[in-house]
C-alpha cells in the first residue's frame, strides 16, 4: 500500500516472512510418521498372526501361518509357468492377466465415462435422455449382469473386461457430471465478463474445475473395477487372480488363497493412493487445512 496508506503496514512482502525451516528431527518425523506408524502396526499384526497360528490350536486349512502366506506369495511372484502349460501355478501370471484386464477395462471406462459425464453436465438434452439409463444401471448390482455377459460373450477375456467396464464406468460418469453441474457460478460469470465464449468457458473453467471430480470418480472406479475383475474371474474363466482364489481354495491351498488376497489388497491400495496423490497434485486448493 505504498502511496495511499502509509500507516497500515501489514501484508507487505518482508523478505523475512518466509523462513527456512530446515531438516529438524521434528520435520523429518512429521513427514515420515504416517509411514513409520503403519509399518510398525503391520509388522506387529503379522508377528501376532504368526504367534497365534504357531502356538494356538488353529487348523492351517482355515488360517495359514503368516510366514507360509508370504512364502507362497514370494514363490508365486518370482516364477512363471513353463511355455505351453495349461494351468499356471504362478501368481505372477494370473496377476498380470488380471492387471492387464483391469487397466484395459479402466481405460475403456474412462474413454466412455469422462466425455459422457461432461456431455451430460453440459447439455440438458443429453442429460435428460441419458440420466434414467445411468441411474438405472448404476443402481443395479453389477454382479446381476454377469450371467448375461457370460451368455453373450462366453468365458472370454472380452467378457471379463466388459464386466470391469460396466463396474467402473458409472462412478466416473456420475462424478464428471456432478463436477460440471457444481462449477461455481461466479467463476463462470467472471470468465464471461472477461470475454469467454462457450468453448473457452468449457476448457478454461468447467474442465479444470471438474478434473478433481473426475479423478475421484476414477478412484471409485478402481475399487468397483477390482470387484468386477474378481467376480468375472470367479464366475467364468481359467485365468486371473479371481480364478486363482477359487482354484487354491478348491485344492485346500489356503496359504495361496491368502497370498492372493494380500496381493489384491496391496494392488487396490496402491492404485487408490496413486489417484489420491494425483488429486492433491492437480487440485492443491482443495487440500488446504482451513482449521
Amino acid at each position, binding site marked *: 500500500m505504498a502511496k*495511499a496508506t502509509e500507516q497500515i503496514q501489514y501484508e507487505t512482502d518482508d523478505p523475512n516472512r518466509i523462513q527456512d525451516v530446515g531438516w529438524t528431527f521434528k520435520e523429518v518425523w512429521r513427514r515420515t510418521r504416517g509411514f513409520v506408524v503403519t509399518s510398525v502396526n503391520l509388522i506387529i499384526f503379522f508377528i501376532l498372526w504368526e504367534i497365534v497360528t504357531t502356538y494356538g490350536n488353529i487348523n492351517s486349512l482355515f488360517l495359514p501361518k503368516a510366514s507360509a502366506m508370504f512364502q507362497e506369495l514370494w514363490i508365486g511372484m518370482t516364477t512363471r509357468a513353463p511355455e505351453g502349460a495349461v494351468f499356471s501355478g504362478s501368481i505372477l501370471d494370473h496377476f498380470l492377466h488380471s492387471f492387464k484386464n483391469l487397466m484395459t477395462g479402466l481405460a475403456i471406462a474412462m474413454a466412455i465415462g469422462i466425455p459422457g459425464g461432461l456431455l451430460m453436465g453440459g447439455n440438458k438434452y443429453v442429460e435428460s435422455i441419458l440420466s434414467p439409463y445411468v441411474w438405472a444401471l448404476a443402481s443395479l448390482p453389477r454382479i446381476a449382469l454377469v450371467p448375461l455377459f457370460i451368455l453373450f460373450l462366453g468365458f472370454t477375456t472380452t467378457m471379463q473386461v466388459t464386466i470391469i467396464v460396466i463396474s467402473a464406468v458409472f462412478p466416473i460418469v456420475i462424478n464428471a457430471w456432478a463436477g460440471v453441474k457444481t462449477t461455481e457460478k461466479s467463476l463462470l460469470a467472471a470468465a464471461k465478463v472477461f470475454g469467454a465464449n462457450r468453448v473457452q468457458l468449457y476448457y478454461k473453467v468447467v474442465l479444470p474445475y471438474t478434473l478433481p471430480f473426475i479423478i475421484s470418480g476414477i478412484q471409485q472406479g478402481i475399487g468397483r473395477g477390482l470387484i468386477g475383475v474378481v467376480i468375472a474371474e470367479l464366475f467364468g474363466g481359467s485365468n486371473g487372480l479371481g480364478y486363482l482364489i477359487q482354484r487354491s481354495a478348491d485344492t485346500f491351498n489356503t496359504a495361496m488363497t491368502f497370498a492372493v488376497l494380500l496381493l489384491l489388497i496391496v494392488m487396490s491400495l496402491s492404485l487408490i493412493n496413486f489417484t489420491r496423490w494425483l488429486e492433491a497434485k492437480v487440485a492443491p486448493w482443495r487440500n488446504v487445512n482451513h482449521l
Partner: protein
Amino acid sequence: MQITNENIIVAEDLTISYDLHRERKKLIALQDINLEIKKGEFVVLVGPSGCGKTSFINAVSGLIPKSGGSVKVRGEEVTAPGPDRAMVFQDYALLPWRTVESNIRLPYELQNLGISEEEKKQRVKNCLELVDLAGFEKSFPYELSGGMKQRVGIARALATNPDILLADEPFAAIDAMTREAMQAEMERIVSETGQTCVFITHSIDEAILLGDRVVVISYRPGKIKEIVNIDFPRPRMNNSEVKISKTYAELRDHIWNLVKDEAMQTTRGE
C-alpha cells in the same frame, strides 16, 4: 481526472425480471430505472439486499438479459460482455488452479485486445504494483488472505484497461482495516485512470467517501428512490477533514434515513 459531460452509461426504463419457474411467476427485480452516468464518474449504488443492485450491474456488464427498457454503453445497446467493461466480484471469483499472475492474464487469453505480448507483460506488472502485490505472482489464491485475493480481483479487472469498472460489494468480506486501505486504493486507481465506476456497497461511509453520486434504490420492485450528490474534493480517503465535517454528518444521516425506511420494510417481512 475530471468528470466529463459525456454520458457513458445510460439506462432508460430499464426493467429486469426473473422467471420463478416453480411458482410460474415472474419476479420484477428492477423497474423503470432511469440513470445517466457520465464518463469518469464514480457512482455508488446502495439499498437493502435483494433490491436489485447486482441485477443492475449485471445488466450493464451484459451477463443477464433485460426484460424491458434499455441500457446503453457509449450509445450502444448492451447485449453481451465486452472488453470495455470489467467487473470486481464480491467473492473474488479467482480461478483456484491458477497463480495470481495467471489469473490476471485470464482476460488476455479469452479475448483479443490487440496488444502485444510485451505490452501485456508490462500491464500485468503495473497492475500488480498498483494493488501492491508485486512478489506474489506465483502464489495461488488459496495462499492469500481475503484482502489480497480481492486485490488480485481488482488487478485482473484493471488488466484490460477498461473504461468502466463494475464492482459488486468488493470489500464486503474484508476486515475493517484492510477495507479502509483498499478504499483509498480504489479511489486513487479510479481517479488516476479516469475510469467510470459503478460500485455497490452496504456501507454508507464507503458510499460517501467514494461516490460522486450515491443512488439509493428502494425495495421490491427496485426503483431509484433518490440520487444524492457528494461534492467533497478528492482525495477524500486520507483527508481527515471530510469525516468530521458537518456536511458529512448530514449526508450520512440523510442517506441512512433513506435506506433505513427500506431496510425496515425488508425486515418487516416480504
